[in-house]
């Protein structure tokens, strides 16, 4: 077995060091080595977006990143979206609009939507739907998710 590597990274704003095997994905390292189980594995191959995190400001699938790749980089996961125990407006609006049922896709959608609003604080419906095309939801039919994101966007604008 390949030896374990120590990886130093900034995780949700905090300097973090963890051990991983080179073959572990970032998603596995977050969930299994660091206990951050908010990011979900829906497909494990880049198609569903349930594992999405923000890596150096860029939205990525954590199931398609190797854990050692994040040495010296900065990662934001769903656990880093709320601040000081106060829900982020996106989280609040997902609750108000009932934008989740089983909830498996929700962390990925919220992280993706956060990356969208960081990039474009006033997206229209087309922008939201296009940006979220790589996030799959088996339950909601998407409409309530899109409405929640637009509600936050309008409040910001």
């Amino acid at each position, binding site marked *: 077995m390949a030896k374990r590597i120590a990886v130093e990274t900034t995780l949700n704003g905090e300097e973090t060091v963890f051990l991983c095997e080179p073959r572990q994905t970032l998603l596995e390292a977050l969930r299994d080595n660091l206990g951050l189980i908010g990011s979900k594995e829906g497909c494990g191959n880049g198609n569903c977006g349930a594992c999405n995190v923000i890596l150096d400001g860029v939205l990525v699938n954590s199931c*398609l*990143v190797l854990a050692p790749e994040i040495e010296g980089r900065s990662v934001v996961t769903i656990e880093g979206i709320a601040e000081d125990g106060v829900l982020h407006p996106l989280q609040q609006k997902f609750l108000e609009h009932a934008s989740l049922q089983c909830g498996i896709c929700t962390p990925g959608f919220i992280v993706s939507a956060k990356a969208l609003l960081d990039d474009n604080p006033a997206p229209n419906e087309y922008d939201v739907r296009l940006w*979220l095309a790589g996030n799959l939801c088996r339950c909601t039919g998407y409409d309530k998710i899109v409405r929640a994101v637009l509600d936050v966007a309008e409040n910001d604008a």
Partner: protein
Amino acid sequence: MQAFDFVAPTSVDEAVSALAAGGGRARPLSGGTDLIAQLQEGRLALDTVVDVKRIPELMAISISDDGLTLGASVACQSINANQAIRDAYPALIDSTHLIGGTQIQGRASIGGNLCNSSPAADSIPNLIAHSVTCHIAGPNGRRSVAAEDFCTGPGRNVLANGEFLVAIEFPAPPANFGAAYLRFIPRNEMDIAVVGAGASVVLSDDKSTIQSARVALGAVAPTPLFVQEAGDSLAGQPVSEETLAKAADLAREAAKPISDMRGTIPQRKHLSAVLTQRALRIAIDRARGTKTVDELGRLNGHG
């Protein structure tokens, strides 16, 4: 995933050594959107993964009057966000906007798309239409290969043991140049091309005659296909639907597709002609300065 070693060299020479030492069992890692998925699914087994993204040359974008040099590992997202590239090479943006969704574009590179060498890869017909040169480093030094000569079969290319792609170089667009890439998929987003077509033209100064043109197709042969005769048929011809239709017929004839779950042979041959003609029209509109990337985004199914 099975176990492997991970190295992240910071120079081209170190990467060449690591790749050469690993033989066929070491591979470069750019965005990982093909490589890690293949490792996860057990379609590929490696001893060493060589992350080439810490090599400055692989992540560099250099655009000037001489053209555009794109580091092999630059992510589509960085290309989409670069206004100078959007202005000078709108057809490149056609491809970088189509590859996967937002989070795939955050990692997926043009170099990875080329080196994965899928017959359906969305950047390669475009690279051929743009007469791109691929710059390769290896144990015997550097060499360059034209984009149309890079792929040799499904998942196979000219890279020898220890070699890897450093950068791709787009020549400066000549005056009155335009290009476009279109693909057909049954949904709006997130799918693999049934057929893709890249085209470029150079028009006369009064923009009524085609001086030269290039056409390339995806997903209709074991490799992305350069249809030289289709472009050549347009040289010296007036811009008209008739001349474009003739080039489109040549594209249909050149296409040697297979039938599979995405499409049949007759459908793919038909699409080869239709997409070639449409891509040529957009290339001409762009050469005349009448079409923007956002308008094309709509033509590509983006709303």
